[in-house]
């Protein structure tokens, strides 16, 4: 995909841009989430080594509040993974009857499912935002590390908003397929 050819018109060009943008956003978020996951792994290993040194009386100790950091990091990483899961449709579903359904029905179902997913994404993001406001108001902090919990919510919100954007793009993608515009080589229907 190196830009839409000129003869495909403006709409096609716009879709090409959106498609590439969605790919870049979802991929970047997933990779950043993965780096957070790797950071959690490194911190956990450092903490274990510190604890081992401590218990053998040498020095150091575990990282204070490592479990808190693990929890916050995991949430941020997993929210960041959602857009990629949506774009590549790695959701678990049962495709058993797909070959038995007429083609138009399958394409219609994909549109409905993608709209449902968009609804879910909006719901999760909006609730997460309200949850964050609650945490700011109550001033909740994590148990040991005393990190404000709303930081975790705020960082997770990035992934949740990405999920909304990608889910919206997926609706567009399946609608185009539904009305019969040929799309990228991969078959998402």
């Amino acid at each position: 995909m190196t830009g839409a050819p000129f003869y495909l018109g403006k709409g096609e060009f716009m879709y090409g841009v959106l498609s590439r943008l969605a790919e870049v956003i979802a991929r970047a978020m997933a990779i950043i989430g993965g780096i957070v996951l790797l950071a959690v792994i490194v911190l956990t290993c450092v903490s274990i080594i510190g604890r081992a040194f401590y218990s053998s009386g040498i020095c150091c100790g575990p990282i204070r509040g490592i479990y808190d950091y693990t929890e916050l990091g995991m949430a941020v990483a997993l929210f960041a993974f959602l857009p990629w899961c949506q774009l590549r449709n790695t959701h678990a579903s049962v495709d058993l009857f797909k070959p038995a359904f007429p083609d138009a029905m399958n394409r219609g179902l994909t549109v409905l499912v993608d709209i449902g997913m968009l609804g879910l994404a909006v719901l999760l993001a909006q609730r997460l935002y309200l949850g964050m406001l609650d945490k700011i108001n109550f001033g909740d902090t994590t148990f040991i590390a005393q990190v404000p919990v709303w930081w975790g919510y705020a960082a997770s919100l990035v992934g949740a908003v990405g999920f909304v954007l990608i889910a919206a793009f997926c609706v567009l993608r399946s609608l185009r397929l539904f009305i019969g515009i040929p799309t990228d080589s991969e078959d998402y229907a």
Partner: protein
Amino acid sequence: MSHIELALWSFPVLLGLVFLRVPIALAMLGVGFGGAYLVYGTTLPIMNQLKSLTFGTFSNYSFSIIPLFLLMGQFATLSGMSASLFRAAESFLGHKRGGVAMSAVGACAGFGAICGSSLATAATMGQVALPELRRYGYPGSLATGALAAGGTLGILIPPSVILVIYAILAEQNIEKLFVAALIPGLIAALGYILAISVWMRVSPNDAQVRPRVPWGERMKALALVWPVLTIFVVVVGGIYIGVFTPTEAAAVGAAGTFLASVASGQMNWSRLKQAILATAGASAMIYLIILGAGVYNSFLALTQLPQLGAEWVGSSGFSPWVVLGVVLLMYLVFGCVMDSLSMVLLTVPIIYPIMLALDFGMSPQDFGLWFGILVLIVVEVGLITPPVGMNLFIINGIARDTPIRETYKGALPFVLTDLVRVVFLAAFPAITLWLVWFIDGFG
């Protein structure tokens, strides 16, 4: 409509949505949400709950073992360990009749000890062992069937992502479940090897044997798999002794397999990105289902269905063993069309309390472990049964010259050994439990 009727009606609605290709997470969340609305007459409680439920689920400390194990499996496939394991197994078994296929199964078992996913195990071992099997003249059916079956050892031998999810849903001890899975996993590997041996005797074919390898070289080949053994002992052993939490163990395992993949020279930035993306897709999928299952199950709990169901089955006078048989059979049937993970997430919250109400003459803890292993085996059979068996598709995709029909045929003997094993383990719970008892005796 009474609450109970509402709960009962939610099953066909949920199944209908799932068969209309609605992602399982979305279907469960939607039905749970709608059900809760009908019970309360307002969406307020559930909307309030959702303000913290998603973040709470995604940040749950015990759940975080799942993405870590998935990443560990991704790194393991890049560690080159699949090839070392296969060569080591071949040096021991290659000269026997059917030995190359047996080696592939043995190597799968070894790989299963550092990888908690069947699909990753099947894909990796398929790439290593399939060319070798074809070179020695194994028929496509046997070669692909053995590898698809061997792939299920990725889940059957701990660590295992499905067991982690079962442990969370049934509130079981992950450490003990891993120990309980060990012996049945080894029996599974032996069963597959036996199936190959019988196949070679019953059906004439031109598969050749390799020359016998002297013991010195066998030891050398075995020495090369030390990273697998080290990682397995540290992860599973460390969890059990209590050196670290299961989540910490999974982090250590991921770090260990990462180092192994760097040492093998196969890790680079683009492969790391691929490993992360694969982990991202699978983790997000699983967490969304956990979230959906949470919403759906809290709706069911509102209607008190699991509780009343358990009371009803408990007082109905059904033989516990008949109920167990029906439940396991149901898993086998559903396994033909559904993937194992969704099946466990969908059913265990409902089935487990009902089964627990039945008297099998053992403690609740023993029952939880034993039932978990039985469920694990029956859902894994689904990976190698047609029409929808993911392992069959993966191996068949690698073996381009073998028609899928041949692969279906090749998987049959292995499915048979699976069925025999389930009956055997169900009839004699002690086989699964004795290692747990034995180790508990020291604690």
